[in-house]
């Protein structure tokens, strides 16, 4: 009974488990307990790791990597906007939404990987600064949620069947959530730059 329920609704149960985990982390004060222990890691990233040393010593390398980071975010944002605005019926109305969802996915994954790799380098160069920024943690949380939402929730549903068979309000909800969460990632990233 329980086994069949789990196999039938595995994804839904995992979402519920993730929500329960977040509630427990907050309720038990685990976030406040773990936060101070992360400072030595960020200080090490800035002062001792080769990433931090290169980032703080060679400004040109830091600027180049940051440019790649911004370009990756631009490509990522482009794929998200193209897909989600098509799902909302705003642009590319003559192209089937299934074609855009599958066609932009590879580009999205490469851009996400590049953004994360270059982002680690950029964060290492200012590790002891971003540690104290609330907006940095907002960006990391939003990035984690956005990546999981895209890779494990949105894409599996949209590639499982023709979109005509999915409730249009579900598709609209997915598209609006996707746009807003990636907007939050981008806005928080720019906020870090101006803090």
């Amino acid at each position, binding site marked *: 009974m329980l086994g069949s329920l789990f196999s039938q*609704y595995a*994804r*839904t149960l995992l*979402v519920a488990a993730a929500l329960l985990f977040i509630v427990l982390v907050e309720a038990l004060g685990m976030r406040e307990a773990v936060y101070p222990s992360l400072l030595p890691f960020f200080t090490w990233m800035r002062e001792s790791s080769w990433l931090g040393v290169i980032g703080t010593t060679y400004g040109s390398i830091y600027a180049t990597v940051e440019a790649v980071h911004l370009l990756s975010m631009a490509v990522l944002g482009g794929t998200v906007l193209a897909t989600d605005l098509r799902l909302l019926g705003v642009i590319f109305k003559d192209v089937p939404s299934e074609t855009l969802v599958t066609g932009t996915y590879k580009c999205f994954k490469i851009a996400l990987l590049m953004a994360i790799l270059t982002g680690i380098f950029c964060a290492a160069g200012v590790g002891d600064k971003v540690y104290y920024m609330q907006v940095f943690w907002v960006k990391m949380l939003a990035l984690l949620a956005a990546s999981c939402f895209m890779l494990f929730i949105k894409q599996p549903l949209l590639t499982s069947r023709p979109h005509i068979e999915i409730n249009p309000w*579900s598709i609209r909800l997915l598209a*609006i*959530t996707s746009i*807003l969460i990636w907007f*939050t990632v981008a806005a928080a990233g720019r906020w870090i730059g101006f803090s």
Partner: protein
Amino acid sequence: MNENGKLDDKTIAAVSSAAIILGALIYYWIGEGQSTVELLELAYGSLKFFNNPLVF
């Protein structure tokens, strides 16, 4: 929805997680807007975007 008209696992997971994330994001951005307004009121006494005598 599957052929029996019941919501399937992927749809329930997608809709519920999207609703939770969307709710959290709206809550966050409204909070940020509210704190910005409070900061502006603290700085200028009352919120006045245009023709503010304190902004030269």
